[in-house]
């Protein structure tokens, strides 16, 4: 099973810190308007959110794995809820690579697999090097096309 690039933790941690920052802004903003939240409580909550976010990011990295199997793409992810996902190649509509701003700063990319399903409409594999993302995308596309032709 393939694991993600360790740098993806930076991406996730950045996300967690941004969320904590937004919470802090909200908390202090609300205080400005007169709601009596004690300052220590806001700081406490924000710190808790930040710490939880960081811990989750680290744990999430340890769980995330994927594998290109015979007829499907298999992923394992999730800390609180462990999800095993199997995407049959014959159901893959198209595959994209995507690079968000934080990803680009860290030098990573994601691959997004689109199906016609609703819950699994798009499956994202984050934390890949741009080179790996490109080869994976092309591999998945080939497998998807092959599976369509693969009939009697």
């Amino acid at each position: 099973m393939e694991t993600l690039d360790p740098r993806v933790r930076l991406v996730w941690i950045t996300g967690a810190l941004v969320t904590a920052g937004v919470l802090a802004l909200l908390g202090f903003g609300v205080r400005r308007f007169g709601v009596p939240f004690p300052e220590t409580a806001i700081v406490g909550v924000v710190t808790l959110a930040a710490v939880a976010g960081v811990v989750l990011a680290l744990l999430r990295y340890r769980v995330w794995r994927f594998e290109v199997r015979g007829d499907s793409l298999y992923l394992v992810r999730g800390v609180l809820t462990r999800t095993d996902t199997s995407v049959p190649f014959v159901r893959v509509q198209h595959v994209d690579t995507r690079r968000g701003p934080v990803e680009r700063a860290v030098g990573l990319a994601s691959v997004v697999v689109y199906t016609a399903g609703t819950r699994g409409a798009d499956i994202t594999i984050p934390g890949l090097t741009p080179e790996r993302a490109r080869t994976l995308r092309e591999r998945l596309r080939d497998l998807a096309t092959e599976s369509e032709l693969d009939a009697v």
Partner: protein
Amino acid sequence: MTRLHPLSALTDAVQRALQFGSFALFASIMLSGPLGAVDFLPALLLAPLGALLGAGYAVARYLRFEYELGPEHLVVTSGVFSRQEREIPLRRIQNVDVSRSLVQRALGLATVRFETAGGSATEAELDAVGAEDAERLRHEVGERVRTVRDGERSTGAAVADDVGAVGTGGAAGATGTKGATDESKYVDSSTDTRAETLYEISPGDLLVLSAISFRPGAIAAPVFGAPFVGDAVTEGGLLLFRFLGGGREGGATDPLAAAFTAFVGLVAFAIAVWVASAALTYARYYDFRLERVADELRYERGLLGRYSGTVPLEKVQTVSVGENVAMRRLGYATLSVETAGYAPGSNRAGGAETTIPLAARGRVLDLARDLQPFGEPTFERPPTRARRRYAIRYALVSVGLAALVFGASLLWTPLPAVAAVVPLFGLALAPVAARAKWRHRGYDERERAVLTRSGFWYRNTRVVPYYRLQTVFTRRTIFQRRWDLASLTADTASTTSIVGGDATAHDIDGDAADGLRERLLDRLREDLSERRRGSRGRSERGRSGTGGRRDGRGPTDDAGDEVGDGTGTAEGSGL
């Protein structure tokens, strides 16, 4: 190019005049009153001015809206300020829906909506045309769509369109251009399409349905009615209290009287919701009928407004049989189909169509089997440890509620701390509830489809044919991992999966879940290749016009065409 019906301009004008006029009135009141910017009398002129503007706009829209039905396209030009011309290729049209509100019925109008495959909104809307024109349009578009599609099919490789008709055994899907003999029994007299009535709700069933259904919107009724009848209810409650209580006067400070009145109020509320719900259901499903026309299911319903919609059979993803507690006791059930495509018009609940609102369970199962064959299911329930898990969960909820009530009683003195005991009664009910929940959950891996079932108050049994499977997930929450349980979800292309729930086998054994996931993927592959082989064989033999498949396959034989945009596994589509 034809215009819409002139009366629609009138109704639209009235509507917009009221809209613009009242907005202008509000604005003028605001301007002259609190804002004090303008004097009152001149400000009042804004209202009729606004109304005129509204009416004028409606008339302009009417004059600028034209449509034309050509042999291969439907062309609609519209727009007052920004002109828009839209050309819709007929082969993209999946459904033609005709709806008639109460006002429209009085005036002889109807609104026609055209929906296309995979579109995110109604592709074109003719609001409103004459009633006969609407039916004619639907009929003509239907015929031309079929002609175009058949033309494509005979030139391109075969996309199997075997639609072994329900009960008649003939391929009702063979259209006029192939010259197939008319094999369906019924001819719809008004539109002369080969329509076969599958189901009509009987008055008795409609009453039963109204009595046992719950419409969430019904809650609005007592909420809005409370100001009017609230006093009467409290007076009535007090009277009843005095009558039953003998000597007690039931003054304002009598807690028992207050509790009793509150109880009476609650009962009145429940009754109001029930009556409103029944009325809404009755009006919604009045004269519900389900027909099959070629390769579509068509339903019609409504007491005040009359609505009709179509379900193209090839878009059907899953079939579900729903039964609430009352239905199970009485031997009734509901049938719904879930389709791919995203067009939630006013008549669609996001892709799930109720094809049979209520019928005897046997009848519902028969029709479900016509759409997707499956035998007598034997459900595999979750392991017994799941029951213990549910019991613990319910017990925790009871304790949690008790703690909440206790905490609230500390903060709010009128609430006695003893009230915290009430939720604790739930502890006794926890094992019963757990057993009920467990009993109605399960899955069944069958030859052509997988069935999942869950729910006590409303039990939903979903049939997912293997060739409709998309992604398969197994989920394990922290708690499930402790019990070595997992939930498996079979994703499909139907759009209700997000809101209405999906085909999930809840709380199955952890190892069994992984095995099941692998097997489902295998079956998907096998089922798809079998269909391809089968359809190629059929196209080589040539169309014989009689329902070919005798292996119990359902009428929807399009191989894996889950979203009608030709991607995925549409064989012969120019690969």
